[in-house]
């Protein structure tokens, strides 16, 4: 009904490259379909109530549609109900909401993605030995899913591989570097480490470099640093989601909803394993971001 739709995206984070890539995708769709989007997220993925305040403020602004990446699948339900009552369509992204209010969810299957990382790790270390995980967050959905996905896959499929340590560095590169160094020094026979998000992965690769270690490093997400590390061989490979696609699909779905289209309940934006050999394939290059 309008020339330009006003869409508010409330994400789980803001400064991290992953969320900036989601924002980039959202901006792209906004430009394409004629909408203005705002993009906001709390400081850290534990600040569930801050996200509620952002959602409440977004509601007060009375936008045409809202995109929402829930930090906690339940906490937002009352506010989402309020949005629904006001006739504002909601699209979930990144991870789902325990409710049928969102018309659609654009997401990655993090458990499966981390399981793929486990498979690649097993392959690269020859199916046996000790590995460790440096993750970003002990309680957030993505943190739990990726650690569980990786650890469970190793347990189920690779009896000769042992996960000796799972530690959390808050996604802070420096802290993840220090953690990695401690793990390496405590376990001289370690074969590999999985870094469960961008900051963790870079921290792991930094730690490996600083100690001159030869372990296998599997990362998660992309960004210029990770891509550079994969090219130079410090990191063996990484799983990437399609954050640009997530942002793009979220806005596209929101506009579809505003136009009265029917939406699929899940828009699986997919994940991919990339390494030096396939980084430049057009299909992979398209989902990587700087």
């Amino acid at each position: 009904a309008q020339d330009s739709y006003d869409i508010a995206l409330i994400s789980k984070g803001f400064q991290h490259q992953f969320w900036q890539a989601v924002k980039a995708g959202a901006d792209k769709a906004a430009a394409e379909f004629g909408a203005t989007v705002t993009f906001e997220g709390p400081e850290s993925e534990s600040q569930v109530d801050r996200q509620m305040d952002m959602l409440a403020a977004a509601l007060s602004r009375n936008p045409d549609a809202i995109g929402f990446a829930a930090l906690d699948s339940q906490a937002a339900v009352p506010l989402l109900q309020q949005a629904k009552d006001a006739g504002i369509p909601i699209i979930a992204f990144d991870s789902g909401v325990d409710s049928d209010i969102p018309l659609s969810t654009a997401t990655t299957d993090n458990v499966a993605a981390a399981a793929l990382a486990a498979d690649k790790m097993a392959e690269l270390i020859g199916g046996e030995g000790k590995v460790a995980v440096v993750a970003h967050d002990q309680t957030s959905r993505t943190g739990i899913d990726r650690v569980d996905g990786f650890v469970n896959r190793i347990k189920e499929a690779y009896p000769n591989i042992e996960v000796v340590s799972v530690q959390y560095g808050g996604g802070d590169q420096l802290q993840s570097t220090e953690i990695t160094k401690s793990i390496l020094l405590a376990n001289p026979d370690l074969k590999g480490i999985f870094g469960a998000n961008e900051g963790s992965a870079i921290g792991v690769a930094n730690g490996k470099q600083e100690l001159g270690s030869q372990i296998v490093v599997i990362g998660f997400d992309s960004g210029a640093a990770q891509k550079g590390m994969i090219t130079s061989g410090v990191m063996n490979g990484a799983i990437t989601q399609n954050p640009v696609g997530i942002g793009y699909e979220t806005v596209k779905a929101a506009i579809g909803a505003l136009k009265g289209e029917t939406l699929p309940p899940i828009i699986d934006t997919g994940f991919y394993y990339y390494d030096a050999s396939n980084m430049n394939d057009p299909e992979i290059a398209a989902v990587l971001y700087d």
Partner: protein
Amino acid sequence: MTDTAAPAAQKSGPRISGAFHRLLAFSGLIALVVAFSLASPNFMQTQNILAILQATSVNGVLAIAATLVIITGGIDLSVGTLMTFCAVIAGVILTYLGLPMPLGIIGAILAGAASGLISGTVIAKLKVPPFIATLGMMLILKGLSLVISGTRPIYFNDTPGFNQIALGSVVGQIIPAVPVPNGVMILFAVALIASFILGKTALGRYTFALGSNEEAVRLSGVNVDRWKIGVYALAGGIVGVAGVLIASRLNSAQPALGQGYELDAIAAVVIGGTSLSGGRGTVLGTLIGALIISVLANGLRILSVAQEWQTVVTGCIIILAVYADILRRRTL
């Protein structure tokens, strides 16, 4: 020597009545509200005002707890993680043990008071500086919350009505036009009680006295340690209320939440005119400080300011608001 009743009227500068003076303290807040109202028609809607108040409730309660401690000349860095700890305790009582709701609430408040008692004892008896004692408690409580909850949120789905503690509106049932959430009423209630304690009870008197000159209080024969521990315990109990509020609002106890909240709470206290060196401060000021923070965050969001610029503007306005308050006091 002539008239003893009117001395206050003989100030050299222009005279301003007490009520007007108190009103001026709100000036920073009012300026913000007016500015945002002019900038966006969405700002001054009932729903948005309620959203702002709701957003203030948890930080406001934490800031009131911090106010008490700061007036003694101390500091409490543990308010954020203690809040979470109390929420987790409520979760254990209600969800894991399945006990009735009032027990969960009382348990959370008692857990807060117990933690405050420990901090206070470490500070008063072992003479550990408040910064270190509460930093240590902050870390201990953060870890314990994760341990007790098994590093996952505890939901209150089995305690129907729990989320009404913060989200329901008793006021709205009576006056449907202003459905002020209970959480906000609880904030006001806590503020009233804390004001009363500060102004009218011995505990409040010693709170100011300790921050003013602890040695003098000791030389006056007062059992300084006991009262100091009392203040920390009371502050802990108030944090327990914040724990119930946030748990109710999220209908869950989120064990990882809390760190960083102490800074917002302390900021509200200091913006509200309470001095970090102790001896002076008001609950009303703290409420205003907490509101300034919430209004700023909400208003900038409503105006769709890009998030990185929101941060910059918030920083500038916090400095300006405090500077304006300093100018106001100077000209009085």
